C-alpha cells in the first residue's frame, strides 16, 4: 500500500482500521523525504525523532482502543518561520541559522493537542520575503511539477513538500500571497485566512498587519480540517479574533453570485493562464452560478501600497535582530573586533541578513524616515482604506470573487531574481487581499503544459467556509 498519497481522512481511516500503524505512516513519509528531497530540497530540518515519538504515542492509544482525532498521526510539515519547541527555526536566514525555538507557536500547540506528526521544517524566502524561495539563505527548492522552475514563495518549501507527497499537509504563512502563489505554482490547495482568525503567536514576524498563518493541502477537505484545528482567538496574540458564527444558509450554487474584477484581466497576463481561469469560471456558470463583472478601481495602487506598508513594518520588526539577545552575532568575532555597541549592530546585520531583506529594511526605513513619512507611509495607509472599500462595495453585489492567483505559471529559476521590481510584480493578484484582511483560497483548476494554474477565490471577512465550499464544487466536478 502506498502510504504517501493519502488525504487526511484516508490516513485516519487506515489508522483506526489498523491497516497501518502511525509508526509505519511516519516511516513511510520519512523514507519518502530521504529519497525525494535530495531533488526537491523542500525541507531545512527533518524532525525524525519528534515524528517517531509522536507516532508511538498514537499507536499506544490505538492499541488501548482509545478514540483518536482525525488529525492524530497525520504527518505534517511546518514552514520554518513558525516556532516548534526545541527545533531549529531559521526563517530561512543566516541570522537565525542556529536558533532553537524555546516554545511552541500557538498553531503548533493546537496541532500537538490533536497529536499530529511533525515531520520537519520547510524552506522559505528569508523572513518570508520573496515570491520564489530563491531568497533562502540555505537551499534552492525546486518545483515538483518542473524541476527547472521555482516552487513560488515564500512558502515554497511547504507547497513543494505537499505536491511531492513528502507530507500530507503543511502550514505556511501569507503576507502578500506567500501561501496562495506557491500553492498555485505547485498545484495544491492553499488558504489564507481572514486577518486575525489564526493566532500569529510564535510566527516570526515580517509585516504584522498583513501576516497570517494558513494550511497548504492536497484537497479542500484537508484544508478545512487543518484550518478548523488552528483557528481561534488567542490571548497571546491581541490581534486574534474568534471566528464569528456566520449564518450559513443552505449552500446552493444556483444562489451563488460570483464577482469577476475587470482590473484583474489585463494586458501582460499570460493568455494561457487567462484561458484556464475563464474556463473554470464558465464551469461555475454552467452549474447555475451567476457571474457578475465587478470593478476594484484602486487595484493599480495595490502593489506600491503593499510594498510601502510591508517594508515599513518589516524594518521595525527586524530591528530585534541585534546580535545581543539571540541569533547570529558579531559581538565576539575575532576577525572584525566590534569596538562598541553600534559596531555589533552594524556588523551583525551586515553579515546576518541577505540582500532582499536588506533591500526591504532600507525601503521601509526610508518610508518611515523624517520628511518622507507623510508622502509614503501615511499616504499608503489611506490608499489601503480605498482598497478595502473597493472590496466592501463589491461584496454588496457578490458572494465571492474569482480571479487568477498569479499572472503567469511558475517561472524559471533565476528568471526574475536579478530584478527586484519584476519579482514584486509577480504578487500583483494576491496582495490586495492582505491589504484588506480578507480570506482567499488558491485552487488548482488546470495546467499549461506541466505547470499548474490556480484560481483565487476571495471571500468576505470570516467567510472561509463559503470559499472552501465554493472550491469544493470544482474539485468534485474534476473527480467525476
Amino acid at each position: 500500500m502506498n502510504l504517501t498519497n493519502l488525504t487526511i481522512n484516508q490516513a485516519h481511516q487506515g489508522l483506526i482500521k489498523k491497516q497501518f500503524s502511525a509508526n509505519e505512516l511516519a516511516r513511510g513519509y520519512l523514507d519518502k523525504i530521504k529519497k525525494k528531497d535530495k531533488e526537491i530540497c523542500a525541507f531545512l530540518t527533518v524532525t525524525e525523532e519528534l515524528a517517531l515519538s509522536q507516532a508511538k504515542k498514537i499507536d499506544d492509544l490505538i492499541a488501548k482502543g482509545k478514540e483518536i482525532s482525525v488529525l492524530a498521526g497525520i504527518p505534517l510539515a511546518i514552514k520554518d518561520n513558525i516556532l516548534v519547541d526545541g527545533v531549529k527555526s531559521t526563517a530561512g536566514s543566516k541570522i537565525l541559522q542556529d536558533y532553537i525555538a524555546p516554545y511552541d507557536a500557538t498553531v503548533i500547540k493546537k496541532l500537538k493537542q490533536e497529536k499530529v506528526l511533525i515531520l520537519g521544517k520547510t524552506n522559505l524566502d528569508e523572513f518570508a520575503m520573496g515570491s520564489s524561495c530563491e531568497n533562502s539563505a540555505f537551499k534552492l527548492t525546486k518545483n515538483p511539477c518542473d524541476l527547472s522552475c521555482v516552487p513560488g514563495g515564500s512558502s515554497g518549501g511547504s507547497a513543494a513538500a505537499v505536491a511531492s507527497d513528502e507530507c500530507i499537509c503543511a502550514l505556511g504563512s501569507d503576507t502578500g500571497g506567500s501561501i496562495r502563489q506557491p500553492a498555485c505554482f505547485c498545484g495544491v490547495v492553499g488558504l489564507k485566512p481572514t486577518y486575525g482568525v489564526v493566532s500569529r503567536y510564535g510566527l516570526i514576524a515580517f509585516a504584522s498587519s498583513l501576516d497570517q498563518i494558513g494550511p497548504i493541502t492536497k484537497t479542500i477537505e484537508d484544508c478545512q480540517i487543518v484550518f478548523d484545528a488552528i483557528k481561534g482567538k488567542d490571548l497571546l496574540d491581541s490581534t486574534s479574533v474568534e471566528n464569528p458564527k456566520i449564518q450559513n444558509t443552505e449552500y446552493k450554487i444556483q444562489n451563488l453570485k460570483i464577482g469577476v474584477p475587470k482590473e484583474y484581466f489585463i494586458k501582460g497576463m499570460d493568455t494561457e493562464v487567462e484561458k484556464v481561469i475563464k474556463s473554470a469560471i464558465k464551469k461555475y456558470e454552467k452549474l447555475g452560478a451567476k457571474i457578475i463583472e465587478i470593478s476594484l478601481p484602486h487595484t493599480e495602487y495595490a502593489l506600491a501600497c503593499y510594498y510601502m506598508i510591508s517594508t515599513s513594518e518589516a524594518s521595525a520588526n527586524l530591528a530585534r535582530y541585534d546580535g545581543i539577545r539571540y541569533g547570529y552575532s558579531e559581538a565576539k568575532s575575532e576577525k572584525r573586533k566590534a569596538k562598541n555597541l553600534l559596531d555589533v549592530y552594524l556588523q551583525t546585520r551586515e553579515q546576518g541578513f541577505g540582500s532582499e531583506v536588506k533591500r526591504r529594511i532600507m525601503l521601509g526605513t526610508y518610508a518611515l524616515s523624517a520628511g518622507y513619512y507623510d508622502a509614503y507611509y501615511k499616504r499608503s495607509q489611506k490608499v489601503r482604506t480605498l482598497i478595502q472599500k473597493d472590496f466592501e462595495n463589491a461584496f454588496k453585489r457578490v458572494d465571492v470573487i474569482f480571479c487568477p492567483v498569479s499572472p503567469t505559471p511558475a517561472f524559471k529559476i533565476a528568471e526574475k531574481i536579478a530584478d527586484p521590481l519584476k519579482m514584486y510584480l509577480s504578487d500583483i493578484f494576491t496582495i490586495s487581499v492582505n491589504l484588506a484582511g480578507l480570506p482567499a483560497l488558491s485552487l488548482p483548476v488546470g495546467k499549461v503544459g506541466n505547470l499548474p494554474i490556480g484560481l483565487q477565490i476571495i471571500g468576505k471577512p470570516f467567510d472561509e467556509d463559503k470559499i472552501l465550499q465554493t472550491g469544493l464544487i470544482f474539485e468534485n466536478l474534476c473527480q467525476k
Partner: protein
Amino acid sequence: MITKQETEHIAKLARLGLTKKEIGEFQKELSVILDYFEKLKKADISNVKAFSQSVLLENVMREDEAKKQDLEIVDRLIKAAPDREKRYVKVKSVL
C-alpha cells in the same frame, strides 16, 4: 533618484552595515522602486482616513503584569544570548 549620501544615511538609520558595492546597488535599485511608488501620488486620498486594522474595530487592553515563568524557560532564553556571563547578557560599551 536618491543620492549615495541618502543611501548611506538610511543604512545608518536602519543600523545596517553595507559594503561600498551594496551602497551602489541599493542606490540604483531603491531609486527604480521608489519611482514606481510615485504611482501612489495619483490616488485621490482627500477625505480618506488612514487604515489601521482590517477586522478588529477596537483597541485591545490588558493589565501590564509580569508573569512568572519556569526557571527552565528563563535559562533557555538566557542561553540564546550569544555573549553572556553567568546569568547576565553581555553588551559592548555604548560609547
